[in-house]
C-alpha cells in the first residue's frame, strides 16, 4: 500500500496526464460525429486485419480437435453408406433382427514405415478401443491393411506395402477376383494376380475389394488399373494397380469391425472338420 502511494507521488503527474488524455479522447470520439467516424474507420482498417489473424491462429490451434470430430463423423457416415447401400430404393422393413454388419473405429496412425520391403504401421487404437487382430484397416480413399497384433492401446498393421500382404480383390462390374500383392518398389503400385485371361479388363478399370474374405466389406475402391499383361505360359493376367490412397501421407485410418465374422468363420470351420 505504501509502495503504491509512493509510486503515485512519484509518477502521479504522468499518470494523471494519461488519465486525462484518455478521458478527453473518449469524449472526443463519443461526442463529435466527425471524430467518431474517423475513429471507427481507422479501427476497422487495422483491427479487422488483426482479428482475422487471431481467428486464423485459433482455428489452427483447434485443428486437432476438429480433425478428431471429423474422423468420428466420417466413421458414422461410412457406417451408413456400407451397411445400408441403397436404403432409399428398397422397401422399408422393420426387422428387429437386422444387424449392422460393419462398424468403424477411427484411429490415428502413430508410426509407420514406407520404404522397407516389409513395412508396418502402428495405430493409436488398441483393445480398449475395440481393435482385434485380423481386422481390416481402411482410409477415406482406399484400404490400408490388416491388423496383426493388438495391445491395450496400440495395434500393429500389416499394410498393403508388405511382401506377405494378400488382399482378395476384384474388378468393379466383373465377378473375377484375384490376389492383390505388393511387388513393386513404388508405394503407389500394387499387383493383382490370378485374374483369368478371359476376363474383359481394360486400363482405367476400378479395382475393389471382393468381399470374399471376412475382413473387408465388399466393393471398397482400392485403385485403378494402369497396366496389364499376360506372363508367358500363364493363363492369368498380371495387373498393375495404382492405389487411390497415398499411404505415405496418411494420418488417419478406420478399423473395420465385422460383427458377423465369428459366425462366418465358425460355419466355415465346421465344414472343414
Amino acid at each position, binding site marked *: 500500500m505504501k509502495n503504491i502511494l509512493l509510486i503515485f507521488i512519484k509518477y502521479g*503527474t504522468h499518470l*494523471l*496526464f494519461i488519465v*486525462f488524455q484518455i478521458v*478527453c479522447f473518449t469524449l*472526443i470520439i463519443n461526442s*463529435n460525429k*466527425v471524430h467518431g467516424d474517423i*475513429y471507427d474507420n*481507422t479501427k476497422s482498417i487495422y483491427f479487422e486485419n488483426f482479428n482475422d489473424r487471431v481467428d486464423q491462429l485459433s482455428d489452427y490451434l483447434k485443428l486437432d480437435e476438429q480433425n478428431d470430430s471429423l474422423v468420428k463423423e466420417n466413421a458414422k457416415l461410412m457406417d451408413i453408406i456400407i451397411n445400408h447401400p441403397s436404403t432409399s430404393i428398397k422397401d422399408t422393413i422393420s426387422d428387429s433382427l437386422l444387424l449392422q454388419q460393419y462398424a468403424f473405429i477411427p484411429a490415428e496412425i502413430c508410426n509407420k514405415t514406407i520404404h522397407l520391403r516389409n513395412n508396418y504401421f502402428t495405430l493409436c487404437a488398441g483393445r480398449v478401443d475395440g481393435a482385434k487382430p485380423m481386422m481390416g484397416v481402411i482410409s477415406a480413399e482406399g484400404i490400408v491393411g490388416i491388423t496383426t497384433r493388438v495391445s491395450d492401446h496400440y495395434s500393429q498393421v500389416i499394410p498393403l506395402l508388405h511382401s506377405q500382404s494378400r488382399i482378395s480383390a476384384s474388378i468393379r462390374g466383373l465377378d473375377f477376383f484375384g490376389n492383390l500383392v505388393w511387388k513393386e518398389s513404388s508405394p503407389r503400385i500394387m499387383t493383382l494376380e490370378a485374374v483369368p485371361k478371359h476376363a474383359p479388363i481394360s486400363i482405367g478399370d476400378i479395382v475393389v475389394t471382393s468381399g470374399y474374405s471376412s475382413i473387408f466389406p465388399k466393393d471398397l475402391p482400392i485403385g485403378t488399373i494402369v497396366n496389364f499383361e499376360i506372363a508367358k505360359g500363364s493363363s492369368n493376367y498380371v495387373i498393375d494397380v495404382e492405389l487411390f490412397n497415398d499411404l505415405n501421407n496418411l494420418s488417419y485410418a478406420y478399423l473395420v469391425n465385422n460383427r458377423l465374422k465369428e459366425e462366418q468363420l465358425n460355419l466355415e470351420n465346421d465344414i472343414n472338420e
Partner: protein
Amino acid sequence: MNSLVTKSVIRAVLLILLQGLVFRRIAFQMGDFAFIHLFIYPIIILLLPIRTPKILQITIAFVVGLSIDAFYSSYGIHASALVFTAYIRNFIIKLLEPYSGYNVDESPTLSKLGFSWFLSFASILFFIHLFFYFSVEAFSFVFFFEILMNTIFSFIASILIVMLYQLIFRSDY
C-alpha cells in the same frame, strides 16, 4: 500567496469568457483562406505560479479546457490539448531556467522574466498547443497540410495578442 490564487482565478475566468465570447467569433477570412484562429486561453496555464503542484496544474488545464470546449461545442478537443500543454510546460520551464533561477512563488510573466525569455516560453508552448489542437481537431494526419497552415497562421496571430496583453498589463496580471 492568497492574492496570487485570487489573481489567477480572476484571470482564468476573465480569459475564458474573453475567449469564449469574443475571440471565438473572430476568424479572419479572405476567400478560401481561413487558417487564422485566435487562441489566447493557453496563457491561463502559462501564467500559473511556478510552484503550483504539477497534478493541480494538469487538473486546472482539464477544467479550463472543458469550459472552452463548452463554448466551442467540441467536447474534449481543447481539454486534451490544454492538458498536454500543461504537461509539457514543466519541462519547458526547466529547460529555459535562467542562471539566477526562478522566484517559485510568482507567475512567469513578461515583467518578471523579461521580453525575450517570455517570448521564447510562450512561443514554444503556443506552437505545441496549437499543433496538438489542430491535429486532434483534424484527427488524422491525412490533413497534414491544413494542420500545419492552421497552426502557423493561428500561432502568429495568437502570439501577437498574447505579447500585447503582457506588454499592456505589465503589473503581474
